[in-house]
């Protein structure tokens, strides 16, 4: 079975969400190819950035894309974008892979293996709005805050090590993170 070479597209996240919905309805492999071409190399790059070796990242990226195909019917574009949904699949897959490496016999009933609880109806109605708001907030973060947020996602390091890597006092890293978090998730600043 051969497929025409498809260039890496710079598709927008919204296009990818629409594509994923269409795949769930039509089970169309040609559509899946487009999704694969966009996401698989990004998933691989993301995992390598987190310290997974190239072969492991390649394998996990393939696994992730299989999960995307198998679970695409559970994707709800009102809750999250395709990129956010796929991000959580990749994150959980990496956690599982690390756990199996360390401890081949694991308890499938372990609560740590449970996915993040789904948002409730009143929460996910705001999903699209939240996606837009968070993306804008991230784009508008001062560079110094964006840097510590990125390092927190990519580096398996305590903040003390991030501080050392950036030659900053730990308190500075923590306050930058705190400021960034308040912009990305304003509800954290709410008093109850």
């Amino acid at each position, binding site marked *: 079975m051969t497929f025409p070479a498809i260039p890496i597209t710079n598709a927008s996240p919204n296009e990818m969400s629409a594509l994923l919905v269409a795949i769930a309805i039509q089970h169309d492999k040609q559509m899946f190819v487009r999704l694969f071409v966009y996401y698989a190399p990004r998933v*691989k790059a993301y995992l390598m950035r987190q310290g997974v070796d190239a072969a492991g990242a390649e394998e996990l*990226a393939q696994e992730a894309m299989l999960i995307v195909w198998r679970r695409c019917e559970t994707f709800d574009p009102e809750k999250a974008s395709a*990129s956010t949904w796929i991000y959580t699949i990749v994150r959980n897959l990496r*956690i599982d892979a690390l756990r199996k490496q360390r401890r081949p016999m694991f308890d499938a009933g372990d609560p740590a293996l449970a996915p993040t609880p789904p948002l409730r109806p009143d*929460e996910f109605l705001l999903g699209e709005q939240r996606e837009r708001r968070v993306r804008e907030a991230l784009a508008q973060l001062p560079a110094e805050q964006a840097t510590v947020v990125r390092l927190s*996602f990519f580096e398996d390091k305590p903040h003390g090590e991030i501080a050392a890597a950036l030659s900053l006092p730990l308190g500075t890293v923590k306050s930058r*993170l705190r400021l960034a978090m308040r912009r990305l998730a304003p509800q954290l600043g709410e008093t*109850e």
Partner: protein
Amino acid sequence: MTHAAYHITEETLLSYAAGMLAEAPAVAVAAHLPGCARCRSAVAALEIVGGTLLDEIAPAPMSSNALSLVLARL
């Protein structure tokens, strides 16, 4: 709004959403989230950050047979 007896620190929520939290604290966070709308929606926001980083990262080329291997398993 659901009130939990305590909240998870911002630093810990960030590590959790990033998938960088050690197993034991991750279990504690997972147990806390169902009862706490504030922490739950913070994690949802931080997962969007993860999705955005995935969009922004420079792609690493997959091996030449990766697509056919995956298609064969669909």
